[in-house]
């Protein structure tokens, strides 16, 4: 018995558009079974996971704030993955961006006079730090042929330990009773709130701008075309005169820059100071988001919102229903697997070939 994948001659655009939705439905069904095995009513769990977070203003804001960094990082990663480059160290670039931008805020802490430049300088420093940090695996790959998968991943731990050291050591607030955290940033170093007194901050706009820019660059520019060709047909890309080295550096710069920017947006927006840890794993979750969104910027935006929803819903389920947080993680992984599986099914027919056993 053997499974054959036969390419479908004709691919229905309707089915292709529906396939992620069907995958989501399937994930909910499987999740429901798991929930009921844990002794909780699936209907109650569904309500807590997916309905409640969408029905209150504060949780809608939380979803937007969680989705923003995910979508921003994943949009940058889409450039890399389209070009068949595997930057899986966005987490590290995120941390380094937050650290570098935060250092600008700490260095200018308490300064008087013109302060309008501080926030732009922080964002620029965070972006540049993310780019510089991503250049390490990129240059190692281009110059020495080192696998970018390993180096980018390992540099995540370097970045996390560096931030940990800085927050506990040199950048610790001298008047902070030895708590491992920096001074609280001045207002001039914080992203403005979008709604008076609420948590939604301007970082969401940064993400929307980045996604819009990515739509145009990836779909309409020669540069985006080069990225797509390099990933899809490397030999045709060489024939087109698209330099693989240049594109490798560019893809890493874009993804590193986006992750670094997301890092400083998180620090200047939600957190407001440097702490030993500033990310609940955004850089890794963004990899899932990038593929859930099929590496297209708009799809990524939707995927980021879905993942943020399940995360917020998962936290609520932990409190209200005493469901473990691991269930949420398992659900997110299940969702990715099913979406990718549904993609395969839209492109191929599965045929069982009996016999022919070896």
């Amino acid at each position, binding site marked *: 018995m053997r499974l054959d994948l036969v390419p*479908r*001659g*004709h691919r229905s655009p309707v089915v292709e558009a529906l396939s992620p939705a069907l995958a989501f439905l399937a994930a909910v069904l499987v999740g429901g079974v798991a929930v009921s095995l844990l002794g909780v009513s699936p209907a109650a769990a569904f309500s807590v996971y997916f309905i409640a977070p969408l029905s209150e203003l504060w949780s809608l804001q939380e979803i937007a704030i969680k989705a923003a960094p995910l979508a921003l990082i994943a949009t940058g990663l889409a450039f890399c993955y389209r070009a068949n480059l595997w930057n899986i160290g966005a987490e590290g670039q995120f941390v380094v961006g937050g650290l570098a931008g935060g250092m600008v805020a700490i260095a200018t802490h308490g300064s008087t006079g013109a302060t309008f430049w501080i926030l732009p300088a922080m964002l620029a420093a965070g972006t540049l730090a993310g780019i510089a940090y991503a250049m390490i695996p990129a240059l190692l790959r281009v110059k020495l042929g080192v696998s970018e998968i390993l180096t980018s991943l390992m540099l995540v731990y370097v970045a996390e330990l560096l931030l940990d050291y800085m927050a506990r050591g040199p950048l610790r607030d001298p008047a902070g009773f030895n708590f491992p955290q920096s001074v609280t940033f001045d207002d001039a170093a914080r992203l403005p709130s979008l709604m008076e007194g609420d948590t939604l901050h301007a970082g969401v706009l940064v993400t929307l701008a980045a996604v819009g820019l990515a739509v145009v660059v990836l779909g*309409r*520019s*020669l*540069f985006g*075309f080069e990225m*797509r*060709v390099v990933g*899809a*047909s490397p*030999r*045709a*890309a*060489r*024939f*087109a*005169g698209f330099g693989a080295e240049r594109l490798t550096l560019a893809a890493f710069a874009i993804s590193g820059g986006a992750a670094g920017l997301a890092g400083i947006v998180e620090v200047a927006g939600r957190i407001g100071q440097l702490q030993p840890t500033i990310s609940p794993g955004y850089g890794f979750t963004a990899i899932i988001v990038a593929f859930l969104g099929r590496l297209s910027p708009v799809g990524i935006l939707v995927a980021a919102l879905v993942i943020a929803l399940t995360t917020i819903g998962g936290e609520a389920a932990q409190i209200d229903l005493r469901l473990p947080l691991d269930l949420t993680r398992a659900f997110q992984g299940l969702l990715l697997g099913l979406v990718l599986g549904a993609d395969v099914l839209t492109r191929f027919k599965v045929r069982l*070939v*009996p*016999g*022919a056993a070896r």
Partner: protein
Amino acid sequence: MTAGTGRAAAADPRPLFGAYGIVKRFGDFTANDHIDLEIRAGEIHALLGENGAGKSTLMKILYGLLAPTEGVVTHRGDVVRLGSPEDARRLGIGMVFQHFSLCENLTVAENIALVMGRGLGRAALARRIAALGETYGLHLDPERPVWSLSAGERQRIEIVRCLLQDPKLVILDEPTSVLTPGEAELLFTVLERLRAEGRALLYISHRLDEVRRLCARATILRAGKVVGACDPRAESAGSLAAMMVGAQVCEVAPAAPAAPGGERLRLDRLSLPAPGLHATGLRDISLAIRGGEILGIAGIAGNGQAELFAALSGETRAGQAGAVLIDGVPAGHLGVNARRRRGAAFVPEERNGHAAAPGMSLSENVVLSRHATAPLTRFGFLRRGAAQALADRVIATFDVRKAGPDPAAGTLSGGNLQKFVVGREILANPGILVVDQPTWGVDAAAAARIRQALVDLAAAGSAILVISQDLDELFEIADSIAVLHAGTLSPAVTRARTTREAVGLLMGGAEDMPPAVTGAVPPSEAAHAT
């Protein structure tokens, strides 16, 4: 009609294998439409048709690789089910593929043992290989690694693999496409021998001369249907081609011999190290082409054609700028787009994945090679309307058949995609055009169209370099011919002053011909062949 001289042929009136009412649909596309085919023992049966006519589909159904949507396959009158190649092999069907499936780093014997499965010791296998070599003139050294073998020797491995299973029907897909004329002669001897033993052969080829020489019956496919059956020996190559394409094929009209223009492309002692373990380095290659001239470069695959093409296109840069001169200006240091801006254009051998990105649309594939030489971008952004307009011009000018307004390049048939990639470059009005295997695996009508376009472009004053393994093609369109062998290029000779035989000898490396080619036919075999 029964087959000629086979011993076993007359005994059984039922055909050895029959395929009746075969229909194969892929979605909405019907690749085979009620095809009937009968193959008798002791005949070489030709299957003719353009690319996309449905030959490969039918072949795969007969070999159990595809299941037909409708229709049956019979063996001596009994309906059989071919669920897998193993079923087919059990019934005595063997196949020699066009593209060899050999492991380069293993020896001949190891490659054969791979498909023989368990139960046959190394020594026994070596004895059987030797015995087959003795019987059919298929001489192979079992201990040689495959990477050191010529294409002809590699094909011999495939044939031996097939014969070890003592097949009653051997399917051969374009078997001579990679062979020198000498190697092809040896193959024909083997095929005649197999036929005389009462085996059936299904012979798929574009080379009509071979079909006329070897085959007593031919079935002709067009657009998935059987459009005729004939005795190819009673037909001319022209009439066979006409049946295949459904219209009279135009011979390439030679352009009026214009006075050659100035020199446009020159290579001056170009040398490049081999880029990889099994690649070929280039040694001291010099050539010159004037405007209005077509230079043909003959040679067997793997003698440096890919490396020469890359050095000409700029995908590999030469160490010295002066090694490549475009219109008299050093260009060896330039990349591919800089050379395009100086009026050069290139068509690589591999359509899918090199000349075109198969997953991308035709308009995007226009951008691929023309973004530097056509107004397809503005401020770094694609002008999609302009790209679509240029794609449409290529499609209209070169009669590219496609489904849908802007389909992915990979959905076109080989001949149509080749017309597209050649047309894309010719519409750039290049002063220099370098083409690698312009009509490889392309049907007769498309090939004639492409060759005519090359001749016309030369007549308009361009210099054209054609790298090809197809000697007929070179003798049809080239003004002069040089031979690439083991990374060195023989001096170019005008077409009138050379012959296919002379070029064939150079292709085999005249002064040091491998013993397998010169001495492969023992006297007894040679006598049998005549």
